[in-house]
C-alpha cells in the first residue's frame, strides 16, 4: 500500500489529503453519473463535464496564484488581489436575464461600490480588531476570508437589486398612488425596499439557522480536516458568519440606496423609463 498521502508532523495530528491518484479515484462516481445521464438520455452531461473541467482548471489556477501570493506578501499584493476579487464579483451581478445592457453596467458599478464599502468595514473589524493579525496585509488571512465573505454578499446584493426592480414594476400603480398623495420616494418604495432586503438577507439568515445542525460549515470542516482543534475552528466559523451577514446586510442597504436614486428623480417621481414596460398608452 501507498501511504504517501498521510503526512506526519510532530506538532499536528496526521493530515489526510488525497493525492493525484486519489483524485482520479474520487472522480469515479462522477463518471458513473455522466454514464447514467447519457444512457438514459437525460441531458446535462455536457454541462456536468464542462463544470467539472472548469472546476479543476480554476482551482488549479487558484492554487498557482495563491502559492505566488503567499510567497510574495506585500500590502500591494493584498490590495490588488482584493480589488480584483471585488471587481469579478461585481461583474457576476446582473449577468443573468436582464435585457437592458445600459442599466446592467450601472447596477454592476453600484454593486461594486456597495460590496467594497461593506466589506471594507466588516473586514477591518474582523482582521484588525477581532483577529489582530500582523502585519495588516497578512495575505494568508485576508484573501481566504474576503473570498468567503464576497461569495456570500454578492449573491445577496444581486438578489436585493433584482427584487427591488421587480417589486417596483409589479407595484408601479401603488408606488405612484403613494407619490400622488405626497409620499417621498422612500416612503412610496418602502414595501418594495422591505421585500428587497428580505430577498437579499434570507439565504444568509437561512444558512445561519441551519449551521451546525443540518450542515457543518465548509470552513470549519476544512480547518478540522487540516488538523486544527475544534475550538479555534468553531470560533473562526462563528466570526466568519458574523462578517458575512453584516457584509450582506450593509451591502444590500447601500445598493438599495443607490438603486433608489436611479429609480426616482430628486423630486420624488418614479422614472418609468427605468422599468422595462412603458405602461399604459396614456
Amino acid at each position, binding site marked *: 500500500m501507498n501511504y504517501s498521502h498521510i503526512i506526519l508532523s510532530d506538532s499536528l495530528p496526521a493530515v489526510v489529503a488525497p493525492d493525484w491518484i486519489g483524485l482520479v479515484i474520487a472522480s469515479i462516481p462522477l463518471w458513473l453519473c455522466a454514464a447514467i445521464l447519457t444512457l438514459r438520455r437525460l441531458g446535462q452531461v455536457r454541462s456536468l463535464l464542462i463544470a467539472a473541467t472548469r472546476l479543476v482548471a480554476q482551482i488549479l489556477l487558484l492554487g498557482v496564484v495563491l502559492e505566488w501570493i503567499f510567497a510574495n506578501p506585500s500590502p500591494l499584493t493584498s490590495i490588488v488581489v482584493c480589488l480584483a476579487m471585488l471587481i469579478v464579483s461585481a461583474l457576476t451581478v446582473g449577468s443573468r436575464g436582464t435585457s437592458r445592457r445600459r442599466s446592467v453596467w450601472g447596477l454592476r458599478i453600484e454593486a461594486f461600490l456597495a460590496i467594497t464599502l461593506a466589506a471594507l468595514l466588516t473586514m477591518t473589524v474582523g482582521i484588525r480588531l477581532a483577529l489582530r493579525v500582523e502585519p495588516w496585509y497578512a495575505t494568508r488571512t485576508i484573501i481566504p476570508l474576503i473570498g468567503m465573505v464576497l461569495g456570500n454578499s454578492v449573491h445577496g446584493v444581486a438578489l436585493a437589486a433584482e427584487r427591488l426592480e421587480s417589486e417596483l414594476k409589479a407595484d408601479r400603480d*401603488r408606488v405612484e398612488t403613494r407619490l*400622488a*398623495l405626497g409620499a*417621498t420616494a422612500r416612503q412610496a418604495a418602502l414595501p418594495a425596499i422591505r421585500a428587497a432586503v428580505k430577498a437579499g438577507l434570507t439565504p444568509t439568515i437561512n444558512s445561519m439557522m441551519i449551521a451546525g445542525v443540518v450542515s457543518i460549515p465548509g470552513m470549519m470542516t476544512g480547518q478540522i480536516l487540516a488538523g486544527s482543534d475544534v475550538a479555534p475552528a468553531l470560533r473562526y466559523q462563528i466570526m466568519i458568519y458574523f462578517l458575512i451577514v453584516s457584509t450582506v446586510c450593509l451591502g444590500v442597504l447601500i445598493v438599495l440606496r443607490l438603486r433608489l436614486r436611479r429609480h426616482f428623480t430628486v423630486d420624488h*417621481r418614479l422614472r418609468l423609463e427605468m422599468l422595462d414596460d412603458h405602461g399604459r398608452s*396614456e
Partner: protein
Amino acid sequence: MFYMKSISRTRANRRHDWRSGLPLRLIGARLRRGGVNVLDGIDLTFEPARSYVILGASGAGKSSLLRLLNRLDDPTDGSVLLGDESLADRPARTVRRKIGMVFQAPRGLPGSVADNLLYPFEIHGVTPPTDASLSDLLAEVGLDRSWLDRDVSALSGGERQRLAIATALAADPEILCLDEPTSALDPAAARIVVELLANRAADNGLRTIVVTHQREQAARFGAIAVVLERGRVVDLGPTAEVLTRTAPAAWDPIERSDDS
C-alpha cells in the same frame, strides 16, 4: 357635515397654503415618451371655481395630462403654472398635496380601509383624525361606515375606486384630478360620487378635473369640457355645447374595449 383637521392647516405647511383660487395653466406643454409626443403642445387654462371634464379617445393623452398637473411627470417642453408660478419650481410633494390625483381603476394600498385613509396623514407625520371622522368620509363616498377594519383585498373594483377618492379627499387638496372615477361604478354609486364632488366644490372650494369616456357622465362632472386628440386640444367650451358638436364615435366605442 363632515369635518377633518386638514393637513394644509398644520405645521410647516402653513407657508405653502395656496388655497388661493389661482388659475392652473399649461403653456405649450409637451410630453415625450418612448419617442412619441404623448402631449403635443397643450395650451389650456383651468380657471378657479370651475369644474372641468377631459374627453378624448384612448391614447389621446388624457391621463398624461393629469400626470403633469400632479407632477408625476414634468413636461418635456413648456410649463405648468399655478398663477404665475411654475409647478416645477415648487417641491413636488407640496404640489401633490394641493393637487391630488385619483388613478384609473385603483387597486388601493395593501392593508385595511383605515390604513388607506390614514396614509396621507402617516406620510406627512400629521396627527391622524378620529375613527369617527374616517367613517364620515366613508359614508361620504357611499361606503359602509363600519368598513374601517375591512381588508382592501375584500373590496370590489367599484368600492376600491370610491376608497381611493376618499383617500385623496382625506389629504384635503385644492384641486383634485380624477381619472375615470366612475368606470367601475353602477349608476347609483356614480351619482353619489358626482354629488360628493359637487358638494365639496360648494362647501370647500374643491376644484375637480375629471377624465372620462362616459358621455352621459361628462355633463355632470364638469361645466367645461376639453377634448383631446393625439395630444392636442381640439375643442374647449361649455360641456353641453362640446358634446353636441363632437361625434360619439370619436371616443366611445374604442374606449369600452380598452377599459380593462
